[in-house]
């Protein structure tokens, strides 16, 4: 993982002294220390591994960042420019690299980003059975309930969705699952089970429309709803009789219910279940399951 992307100066202590299994995030900022996020805690990266001492930390420079972006794009920035415009690159291993730098605009249209100054490498994890606790409240004998996974960034939404798809396939329920993987993050490693079709790097609108028409799914699983266009796509799927399991950024049910874009979905009660995740005890902490009226059904 990340071999051939990170420079040796960072990769060697990371691989030999820290390891990737418990690592969630690596942050590199120009002329600042390399920061690791591990089980909700922050460390600097030093030559001898993770440390709290700033004096022992490895510092990152611009050329390191530029080279990481170049290598992450498989030495072909032109091929990932559409992703760069959205502020990230996803590697073939499903690792999302968030970018900060100078945005180039022309006539109000975002053309690209240059002079990268910060990157945030988010390492995907496959945590088997992390969705099991709430599985039975989402999948009923009568069918699957439209469900929205709510959590702040980095709290395990994608890992939850990945496991949920795998659990559905594993139970041999024979649902045709369409995974709409807009950022290429869901489909990593050992795959998503035998009943899933995957559309990658497509917008929600296009993916929902084409997927429903051509693949006749029973369930659509997708990550990070946010824009009005996404809400329209959800409504379209719901009206087509397809069940939806999706995720959204928010740190609580209250702040989620205040989101303007979701007002209509809440009023129409399109989503029957809301699963709230948090970072309280590390990424993926289950906080509760709520029904369509946002009344709590389960608590941990």
């Amino acid at each position, binding site marked *: 993982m990340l*071999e*051939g*992307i990170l*420079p*040796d100066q960072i*990769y060697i202590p990371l691989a030999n002294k820290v390891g990737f299994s418990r690592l969630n995030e690596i942050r590199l900022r120009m002329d600042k220390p390399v920061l690791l996020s591990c089980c909700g805690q922050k460390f600097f990266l030093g030559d001898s591994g993770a440390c709290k001492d700033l004096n022992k930390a490895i510092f990152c420079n611009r050329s390191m960042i530029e080279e990481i972006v*170049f*290598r992450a*794009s*498989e*030495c*072909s*920035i*032109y*091929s990932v*420019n559409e992703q*760069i415009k959205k502020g990230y690159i996803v590697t073939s291993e499903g690792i999302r690299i968030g970018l900060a730098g100078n945005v180039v605009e022309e006539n109000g249209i975002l*053309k*690209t980003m240059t002079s990268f100054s910060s990157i945030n490498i988010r390492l995907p994890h496959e945590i088997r059975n992390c969705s099991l606790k709430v599985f039975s409240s989402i999948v009923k004998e009568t069918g699957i309930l439209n469900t929205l996974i709510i959590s702040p960034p980095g709290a395990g939404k994608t890992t939850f969705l990945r496991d949920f798809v795998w659990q559905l396939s594993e139970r041999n329920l024979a649902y045709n699952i369409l995974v709409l993987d807009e950022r290429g993050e869901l489909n990593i490693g050992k795959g998503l089970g035998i009943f899933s079709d995957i559309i990658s790097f497509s917008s929600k609108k296009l993916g929902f429309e084409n997927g429903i028409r051509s693949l006749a799914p029973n369930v659509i699983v997708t990550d990070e709803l946010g824009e009005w266009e996404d809400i329209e796509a959800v409504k379209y799927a719901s009206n087509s009789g397809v069940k939806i399991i999706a995720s959204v950024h928010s740190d609580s049910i209250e702040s989620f219910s205040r989101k303007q874009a979701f007002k209509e979905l809440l009023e129409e009660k399109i989503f029957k279940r809301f699963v709230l995740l948090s970072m309280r005890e590390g990424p993926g902490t289950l906080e509760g399951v709520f029904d369509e009226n946002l009344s709590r059904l389960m608590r941990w």
Partner: protein
Amino acid sequence: MKWVIMAIMFVFCVGVGYFLSLRYKRRQNFYSALIMFAQKLDVEINFSRERLKKLIEDMDEKNKKHLFGLDKNFLAYLSGNLELKQTELFKNIQFLKPDEKETIFLFFKSLGRSDVLGQSKEIANFSKRFDDSLTKCSNENKKYGSLCIKLGVVAGLFLLVIML
């Protein structure tokens, strides 16, 4: 015996002339292949937007033959987590002048480092410079390449006359 030695001497002189002329031929073929390489990259980057490595691997072997391993050296750089170095890139190529190597090095260094529009413009700029070099090499090949062979033949004949 004398005739055999004379024949060997003649063939040797012509061979030396031909060998010297090869440098000019190689330079011409190299630039011709490099221009094809750049054009193909430009088209594919605009059309398929495939990764650089795959684009280079999929290129016509016949054309790549005249790049004298430049493509392979560049692929080795793409595959490893290494810095692009001139000495590594031109490992098997001796017939280029230092300024020519510098230009080609800059071309390869620029590959994959910008968006489609920027990359396309960059390739077009370098292609123009390679075109100029090709014209120069063609003229040199016509002028000095054939001259080397002719000199080889003349030298061979001269030796024959002396031996007779």
